[in-house]
C-alpha cells in the first residue's frame, strides 16, 4: 500500500503534549510536530481526537493509522503494536508541596542518569531514607509506577491514580506526600497549581525509562512505520524537535 494519506489520533486533553483549543482545533507539541513529520514523509495527514481508553483497539480495528499521544515505547505495548523511533524522551522526578518538610530533599536541582534495571544508586538510597513511611502517588501502569514500586515499595506507601492530574490534586489536598512522574509534565502542572508544588530530589534521566515516546502503528504497516521513523530522524537531526520542545516544554525532550 502506498501511503498518500493517514489518520493520526491523539487525546487532545494532555497539555502541553496535545490539547484542544476552545474552538475545537488541536494544538500543542505533538500536533505541530505531526504536521512537520507528515510533510517530510510526503503523507497527507488528518488529525482526529479520540478517547485514550479506546485508542489501541481502535487503531487495530483500522479506525486510524497512527497514535501520537505521548505513548511510551514499552515491551508490553510492542506485543500489540509497532513503534517508530522515539521523538521524545523525558526525565522523571519527585514533586511535593512547597511547604512540605520533604521539599528540597538531597539532590534537588541535580540530574542523574540511570540505566534499565540499575540498582544501588546512592542518590536513590538517600531518598529512600528521607521518604520512609510517606505516601507516594503515581499514575497507574506507567514506567514510573514500576520504578517507584521497585525502589520505594519497601519503605513507603504507594497509591495509584488513574491520571497524573488526579494525583496532583491530591498532592495539594495533602492526602499524599509525594508524587513521581515525567518532569516535563510536572513543569507544566506546577504552573496550574499556582506555585504550591515543587520538585524535590534529583531529576532521573536515561535508558531506565525505555526508549522514549514514539508513534504507535499497526504491526502490518511496516512501510508506514519506516516512513515516519525516517521523518523523525531527520527532524531530530536538524533540531526541529528541539525547537518545538523549547516552545512547549521550555526544556529539550529530544532523545539523546
Amino acid at each position, binding site marked *: 500500500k502506498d501511503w498518500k494519506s493517514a489518520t493520526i489520533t491523539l487525546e487532545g486533553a494532555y497539555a502541553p503534549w496535545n490539547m484542544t483549543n476552545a474552538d475545537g482545533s488541536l494544538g500543542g507539541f505533538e500536533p505541530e510536530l505531526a504536521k512537520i513529520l507528515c510533510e517530510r514523509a510526503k503523507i497527507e495527514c488528518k488529525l482526529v481526537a479520540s478517547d485514550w*481508553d*479506546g485508542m*489501541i*483497539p481502535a487503531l487495530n480495528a483500522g479506525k486510524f493509522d497512527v497514535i501520537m499521544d505521548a505513548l511510551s515505547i514499552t515491551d*508490553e*505495548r510492542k*506485543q*500489540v*503494536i509497532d513503534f517508530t523511533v522515539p521523538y521524545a524522551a523525558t526525565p522523571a522526578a519527585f514533586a511535593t508541596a512547597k511547604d512540605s518538610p520533604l521539599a528540597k530533599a538531597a539532590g534537588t536541582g541535580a540530574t542523574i542518569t540511570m540505566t534499565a534495571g540499575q540498582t544501588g544508586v546512592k542518590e536513590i538510597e538517600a531518598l529512600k531514607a528521607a521518604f520512609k513511611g510517606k505516601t507516594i502517588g503515581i499514575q*497507574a*501502569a*506507567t514506567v514510573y509506577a514500576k520504578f517507584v514500586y521497585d525502589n520505594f515499595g519497601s519503605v513507603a506507601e504507594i*497509591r*495509584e*491514580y*488513574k491520571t497524573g492530574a*488526579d494525583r496532583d*490534586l*491530591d498532592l*495539594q*489536598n*495533602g*492526602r499524599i506526600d509525594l508524587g513521581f512522574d515525567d518532569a516535563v509534565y510536572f513543569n507544566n502542572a506546577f504552573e496550574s497549581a499556582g506555585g504550591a508544588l515543587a520538585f524535590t530530589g534529583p531529576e532521573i534521566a536515561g535508558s531506565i525509562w525505555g526508549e522514549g515516546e514514539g508513534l504507535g502503528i499497526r504491526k502490518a504497516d511496516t512501510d508506514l512505520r519506516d516512513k515516519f521513523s525516517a521523518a523523525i530522524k531527520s527532524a531530530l537531526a536538524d533540531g526541529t524537535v528541539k525547537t518545538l520542545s523549547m516552545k512547549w516544554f521550555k526544556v529539550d525532550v529530544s532523545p539523546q
Partner: protein
Amino acid sequence: MDFAFLSSTMVTLIKAVPTSLMLFSLSIFFGGLLALVIVAMRVSGNPFLAGFAKGYIFVFRGSPLLIQMFLIFYGLGQFGVIRYSFLWPFLREPVVCAVLSLALCTAGYTAEIFRGGIRAVSPKEIEAARSVGMSGFLLVRRIIAPIAFRHALPAYSTEIVLMMKSTALASLVTVWEVTGVAQRLISQTYRTMEVFLCAALIYLVLNFVILQALNLLEYSLSRHRGAIPPALKA
C-alpha cells in the same frame, strides 16, 4: 486464544472482587437507608422537606457519578474548612469517599424508585388502613412499604445491579476494584478485548447471582396476586 493470558488475567481480576463487593454492599446499605429518609421527606407533605428531597434527588440523580465522585474526593479537600475539621480523618480515606459518593448517588435513584412504588399502592388499601387508626410510621411499615416494595422490586433490582457496575468508578479515587484493575492491565498489555471480556464475565456472574436472588424474592412476594389467567397473557 491465549489461555495462559486469560487465566492469569482472571486470577488478577478475581483478587479485586472482594473490594468491589465491599464497595457494593456498603453503598447499597447506606444508600438504601438514605433513600428511605429522602423518600419520606419527599412524600411528607411538608413543603420544606419535600423541596429539600426534590433538590437532593435532582442533583444526585441528575449529574454523572464520575463528576460527583471527583468533586467529593478531590474537591472537598480544597477547602481549608474541611481539611482542618474533624471530618478530614474520614474524608481523607479513599474508601470512605468512594462509598460516600456511591451511596449519595444511589440514594437519589432509589428514592425515586420507591416513590414510584408508593404511587402504585391502591388508595383504597391505604384508606382501609387509616380507617382502623393507622397513620404515620405504622401505616408505612405495615401497609405502604410492603406493597410499594413489591411494586418497586423490578426497578430496584435494576438499581442494585447498576450499583454493582458503578463501583467500577472507584478507581478514580484510588480504590482499585475489578474494573480499575482491568484498566490497569489494559494499559500494561493493551489487550483490551481479552481483559474486558474477563472483567465482564466476573460482573455477569456476580450480577446473575444478585438478579437470581432478587427474582426469587419477587416470586415469593407475589403469592398474594391472583395468577394472571393464561387466556389473558399479553
